[in-house]
């Protein structure tokens, strides 16, 4: 009897071990690789499960780390996840390497019309990323600081921004009113691109020749503006070591008056009293411009499916769920990620849920892609040169002239 019991137990154990992988496979969650600002709360993942019957295995990695993981995995012909973040700046590299599927087939024509930023993720006619996070830049400011300094409206030109910052420093007691990252990071480079537009310039001509080395160019004036504001004590000297997300923390704690390259979606976070000390005072304005007509850049985030992904149908369903109006609303209200669908943006504004909605809608209409013809494959190399040389200029290690010349040389070299 004892022997029979033992044999039965062994057989059951063996069967269990044999069945386990099958059952595990049947219930396998969809692997998704996302950046920290898209850490989906349980409430949202529960909604995903309710709608699709599936579950998610969300891996959250920093922006740089996601890119490294994708590159490493794809070089080894393995998918890092079934669906991954696709930044606008990776499109040229990942598109030319043929690492991502064309997703144009999973979107209806109506949906495509509702997603104006799809062109940014189109490489060689293929849509390799479906935009779900509408990052464009606005000027975010602390209206209480301006009021203390006797300023009634947000600055409309870079000169006004400088004058207001000086007034706030003197009258409102804000030690460093301008928030701009100057570390050797992508966030610092992005802010310089934005200011280049603000000073009426562009980075390249149609033949991709650099346009920022001339003293009268927008790019030159933008970098000179940043370095001078730092020297004048309007930007925290610590900014040479601070990333964009750290500048955002300074704004939230009331130590900075202007988040010059503010993420549009961040207004939801800045206005949330549980996350920000300046919730009642955060306001938005159009990006100042020397011409008085605002310009800004669109840096949206998308979701892509690697060519070597195993569970592509589920990945497509996940992407469609992320585009669902309810998910997009949740993504904005809970995480501060602005919807990419025009209809969802308009509905949020109509319902009064879009913080500084009118300003955001007005700025959204002025969004320009950084590269009209699509992000080139050499962008990351160029961008690294911008970050490194801007950082060196801010530290006083090189002049603005030398920094811009080095960036131009790096751009030409990267294009070869």
């Amino acid at each position, binding site marked *: 009897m004892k022997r029979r019991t033992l044999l039965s137990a062994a057989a059951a154990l063996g069967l269990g071990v044999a069945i386990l992988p099958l059952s595990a496979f049947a219930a396998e969650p969809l692997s998704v690789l996302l950046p920290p600002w898209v850490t989906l709360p349980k409430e949202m993942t529960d909604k995903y499960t309710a709608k699709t019957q599936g579950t998610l295995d969300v891996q959250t990695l920093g922006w740089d780390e996601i890119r490294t993981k994708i590159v490493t995995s794809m*070089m080894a012909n393995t998918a890092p996840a079934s669906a991954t973040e696709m930044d606008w700046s990776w499109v040229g590299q990942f598109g030319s390497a043929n690492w991502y599927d064309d997703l144009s087939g999973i979107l209806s024509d109506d949906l495509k019309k509702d997603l104006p930023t799809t062109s940014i993720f189109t490489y060689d006619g293929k849509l390799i990323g479906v935009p779900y996070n509408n990052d464009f830049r606005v000027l975010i400011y602390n209206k209480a600081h301006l009021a203390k300094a006797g300023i009634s409206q947000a600055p409309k030109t870079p000169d006004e921004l400088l004058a207001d910052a000086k007034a706030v420093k003197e009258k409102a007691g804000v030690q460093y009113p301008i928030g701009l990252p100057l570390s050797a990071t992508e966030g610092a480079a992005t802010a310089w691109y934005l200011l280049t537009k603000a000073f009426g310039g562009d980075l390249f001509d149609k033949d991709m020749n650099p346009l920022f080395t001339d003293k009268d160019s927008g790019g030159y004036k933008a970098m000179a503006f940043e370095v001078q504001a730092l020297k004048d004590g309007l930007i925290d000297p610590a900014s040479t070591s601070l990333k964009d997300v750290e500048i955002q923390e300074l704004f939230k704690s009331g130590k900075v008056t202007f988040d010059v390259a503010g993420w549009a979606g961040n207004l939801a976070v800045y206005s949330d009293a549980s996350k920000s000390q300046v919730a009642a005072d955060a306001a938005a304005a159009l990006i100042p411009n020397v011409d008085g007509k605002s310009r800004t850049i669109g840096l949206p985030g998308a979701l892509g499916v690697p060519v070597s992904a195993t569970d592509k149908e589920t990945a497509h369903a996940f992407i469609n769920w992320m585009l669902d109006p309810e998910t997009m609303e949740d993504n904005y209200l809970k995480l501060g990620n602005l919807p990419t669908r025009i209809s969802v943006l308009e509905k949020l504004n109509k319902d009064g849920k879009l913080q500084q909605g009118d300003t955001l809608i007005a700025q959204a209409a002025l969004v320009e892609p950084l590269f009209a013809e699509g992000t080139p494959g050499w962008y990351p190399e160029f961008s690294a040169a911008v*970050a490194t040389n801007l950082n060196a200029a801010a530290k006083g290690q090189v002049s603005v002239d030398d920094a811009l010349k080095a960036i131009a040389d790096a751009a030409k070299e990267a294009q070869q």
Partner: protein
Amino acid sequence: MAQSFHKKRAFLDREARLGLGLSLPIILIMGGLVVLPLIVTVIESFYRVEPMKPGMPFVGLRNYVNLMVDDKVLTSWVNTFIYVVIAVTIETLGGLGAALVLHKARAGRRWLLAAVILPWCLPPVVNAIIWLWIYNPSYGLLNGILKAAGLIAENHVWFNDRLTGLFLVAVVHAWRMLPLTAIILLASLQSIPANLYEAARLDGASPWKQFTTITLPLISSGLAIALSQSTVFAFNLFDEAWILNGSSIGTRSLMVQVYMSAFQNMKFSLGMALSILAMIASLMVSAVYVLRVYKETRFD
């Protein structure tokens, strides 16, 4: 014929087979995870491996030539040599000091040992993030302490000065790696027979004389290992430089440059060529240390 048969039998005898069997796992692991990737890396460094471009043509020494004329690469070489000098000096002197203290300690030695080892147990990224807070120009501990002590009047942005930045990055690396040196040297110290010191004391030798004529020569093999590993790890410094100061050229190490070439610019063959050069340089410097230390501290 008989001699050859004898040799064959000797090669295949039981002990040899056992030795071979026991060595096989490590041979396979090292072969598969170190030697094979190394060979592939060396070969591919002579090709153009860039996923953005079609094909993988043979380019000969072009990758190596490009590295020789790249200012950023040259700066990262200089930075790395500075890191090696600072880190190896701190680790060796600090590690020797810590090992001597641990060796002499009577009470609470286990706790002291645990405290010394702690930085080495932490992941390098965690270590670097802790020091990022310490060096933070706005609310960092370093500025706070120096201000409280009246040594500085205003907060310093430590990484604005290149040499200060290099020193601070090297300190973080040394802080993490010093325990390994200390443990290696402690093991060497513990292997020295106590009667040698007793004899020296009877002969009237001073503590310094005992250290230079007994301790130092007898820990020379441990010192050579410690110096060698310190050098190799300092050459491979990445996390500390990347986390503390990003891609900033002032503190960019060779490994950061390799990462940027391979993973950021997706020029893998360039990254491979640079990593091969870094490996050769680190082995050469280590070999010089090992031979010199070994030669100078031997009795014979």
